[in-house]
């Protein structure tokens, strides 16, 4: 048996969380959460090449919070299997020998359950190294689940034990502490998002949102691109400080963002009869990292004609797509990670992330850890992480043993 936080199907809780979760986040961590602490059977490696991993730290991601508060699209419903244990940002210890990796190896997990993990011949995307785009995430050795943390069979990071395939495992250098290693997965996603935007040298970039995704995307832009001016939209003081620390040219609040981009790009600003202002002109690349309708609107309204808008945050419905049409914007998603082209080389985003995590001072990004037993406090904290100046909150399942 293993202790785990299990997300279960509950229509009333889902509806209630969806109705009030955003306005009263405390309720999501309380009676409305479709989450429970359980003792359940340890997940079993489903095939050769799989092994058990005992999480040391497992981050709470914005997508996890969106799931808990009922803000995700029903699009995902066939891509998950219930009940599941959330948690896809994981650093842990390998419990079994898995191919070339001996038991006891400290690993981080690439959560995507792609063809290799499912025992399938590689689909065209997996063959290209773009495992995030895998077309077979519902079949094979394990139940449907786009990632570890959304699959009923694998378990997830918010537990004392999960199973993972060799293709998901990335050994962690001894010198890299757990507090940084747990950031490798979101950092890999951020690198992917930054590179999806394809900023040319000197291009101007707007990063909307300065939570973990936004801050790490900013970091990735500075590490792997020659972007020029980067404006970061941050709500809270702690986020502003971090954005400046990681190389933002300008940090502004959401209300000042249109003006700031306009000034920097010398664009024309227009005010519709209803809704927010927009620009004719603007940044070359807008990266939406907050996962809200307002932030996506902002990115779409401040990116120049022909520019690119990257959706790094979990998308939401309701954004006004008129600028996409009128400004002929390239809008692209940035989901998970894969093989990336950097300076002419193709490298795994996880390898790139591992090196950045080793070289760049990420201290303070992980702001708090909680045992699984204190999950309500942890979720509550994570829901207010920006306001409380804590970019990342994580579970430490070792504290429950």
């Amino acid at each position, binding site marked *: 048996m293993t202790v785990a936080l299990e997300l279960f199907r509950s229509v009333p809780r889902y509806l209630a969380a969806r109705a009030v979760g955003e306005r009263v986040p405390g309720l999501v961590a309380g009676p409305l959460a479709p989450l429970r602490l359980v003792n359940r059977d340890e997940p079993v490696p489903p095939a050769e090449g799989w092994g058990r991993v005992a999480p040391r730290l497992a981050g709470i991601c914005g997508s996890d919070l969106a799931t808990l508060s009922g803000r995700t699209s029903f699009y995902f419903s066939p891509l998950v299997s219930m009940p599941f244990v959330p948690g896809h940002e994981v650093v842990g210890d390998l419990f079994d020998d898995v191919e070339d990796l001996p038991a006891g190896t400290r690993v981080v997990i690439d959560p995507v359950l792609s063809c290799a993990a499912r025992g399938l011949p590689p689909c065209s995307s997996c063959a290209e190294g773009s495992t995030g785009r895998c077309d077979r995430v519902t079949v094979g050795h394990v139940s449907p689940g786009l990632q570890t943390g959304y699959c009923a069979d694998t378990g997830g990071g918010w537990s004392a034990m999960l199973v993972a395939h060799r293709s998901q495992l990335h050994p962690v250098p001894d010198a890299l502490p757990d507090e940084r290693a747990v950031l490798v997965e979101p950092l890999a996603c951020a690198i992917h998002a930054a590179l999806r935007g394809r900023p040319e040298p000197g291009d101007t970039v707007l990063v909307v949102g300065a939570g973990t995704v936004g801050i790490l995307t900013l970091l990735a832009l500075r590490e792997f691109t020659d972007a020029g001016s980067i404006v970061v939209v941050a709500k809270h003081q702690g986020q502003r400080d971090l954005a400046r620390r990681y190389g933002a040219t300008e940090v502004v609040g959401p209300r*000042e963002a249109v*003006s*700031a981009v*306009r*000034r920097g790009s*010398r*664009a*024309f*600003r227009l005010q519709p009869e209803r809704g927010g202002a927009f620009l004719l002109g603007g940044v070359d690349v807008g990266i939406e990292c907050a996962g809200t309708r307002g932030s996506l609107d902002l990115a779409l309204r401040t990116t120049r004609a022909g520019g690119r808008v990257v959706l790094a945050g979990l998308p939401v419905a309701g954004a006004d797509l008129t600028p996409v049409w009128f400004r002929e914007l390239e809008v692209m998603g940035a989901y998970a990670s894969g093989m990336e082209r950097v300076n002419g080389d193709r490298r795994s985003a996880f390898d790139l992330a591992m090196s950045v995590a080793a070289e760049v001072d990420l201290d303070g990004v992980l702001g708090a850890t909680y045992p699984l037993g204190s999950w309500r406090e942890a979720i509550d904290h994570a829901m207010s992480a920006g306001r409380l100046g804590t970019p990342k909150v994580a579970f430490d399942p070792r504290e429950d043993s």
Partner: protein
Amino acid sequence: MTRPGFVLEVDERTPPLLVHRGEGFGVQRFPLGTRVVYPPDSLPALPDVRGSIRHAIMNPLGSEPLPELLRPGMRLTIAFDDISLPLPPMNPPDVRQLVLEEVLELAARRGVEDVELLVANSLHRRMTGKEIEAVVGERVFRSFWPESLRNFDAEDPGGLTYIGQTDKGEDVEISRRAAESDLLVYVNINLVAMDGGHKSVPVGLGSYRSLRHHHNVNTMLHSRSYMDPPSSALHGSAARMGRLLADHLRIFTIETTLNNETFPREFGFLNRREWEWSLRDQAGYLAAKKANDAAPGRIRREVFRRIRAPYGVTGVHAGETEAVHEQTLANVHRQQKVEVSGQSDIMVVGLPYICPYNVNSIMNPILVMCLGLGYFFNMYVGRPLVRPGGALILCHPVPWEFHTVHHPSYVDFFEEVLAETTDPSQIESKFEEQYATDPWYVHLYRNSHAYHGVHPFYMWYWGAHALDHLGDVIFVGGDRRAVRRMGFRAASTFADALEMARERVGSSPTITYLHSPPLALAEVR
């Protein structure tokens, strides 16, 4: 005989004194010994303004009479001061209207057909048709608007003529229409000593390329003060430009001066010295204050916006610019000059609701700064009223509020520039060019009713001399965030402000209260 301005020393019998506080006012007791500078009483108005105008243009100074300069087939341009003058706007008819009507009648009689009227708005916002009509009168407006009566556009590439450089290398570029005219008549209202003279044409009809040579930090630091033209680098530069222009273009200047009847009858107490308030004045004060304090902000603003000053015209002079302006300045001094003996540690000013750049608009924090540290601090000849390192206490609520149509670049200046630095030189070197050439601001200046993108910079530079001179600036009742953004301090009460100022200037400071408006120009000996 009009009583001159004087300096009162506060004693036990001195009543609480009136203090302007933006769109509000109140009375305030000052510490014993405080010097209070009162402007002279209002000069008598000319009994026959039209007659005086006719006399001035028929008997000009340093020039042939105007009729002799007018002939059929000529191109005549008449430029006049914009909405920034006078303050508050005057009761109709505006003296500019009277002058324009006389000049236009004369031109018509002399067979001049090619006549255009230009608002000399420089980098100020375009005036609306209604605002222009209020200045020029219905008859002129109906005859000329909009084809031959328009705002000057300092960003119209085809509408400017480069005249050349002064002997100091200053570029002179003005309105093409004016530059290519056979005669330019300039009609002004000289409310303060800064206005008029060679400042009228080179500035009022000049472009940014030209203005940047004197509207800059260095010039302002060497204008001590800009209310004293002989001691003002700003006026020195404008004079060089004006003389260069006079070599290329025939300019006939008509300048007018006003008395100190600043407020209408219902606010008559604002024009009078407190111990002379009649029962009617006292009742008027109490009623106006109660009503004003109780009114919602929108209503209050509207009431103040509707104020029209019953100004009387004290002088009209016409002819060659410098000869005319000498007479004009003498008139202004006669109305406003007050002799003051020595400087004090603290200067106090109550800032009124209006300045040159918020007519029919909102006085945003940058304009408040400009009004206090620019205009009122500089209301001196000789030396500032406050000693070097002294403190300036300004009474104004400094609301964090902007008119987004009139002042779009101000919003950005406040949010972006002042968030980084309040140092005028740094602001000038790092940000001015960017704002001055921003195509959006240029567009709004030309097509909407926005002040030019560079205008908030000029407002900040206007206070550069004061910033350099003063040790402390404290706003009584000011919005703390807005005041802090500008690098100043806010106090809840006047007593608190004095206490704070004492930290800087010592425990027994000398205090001077500049009791204005009506306007007073301190001649500090």
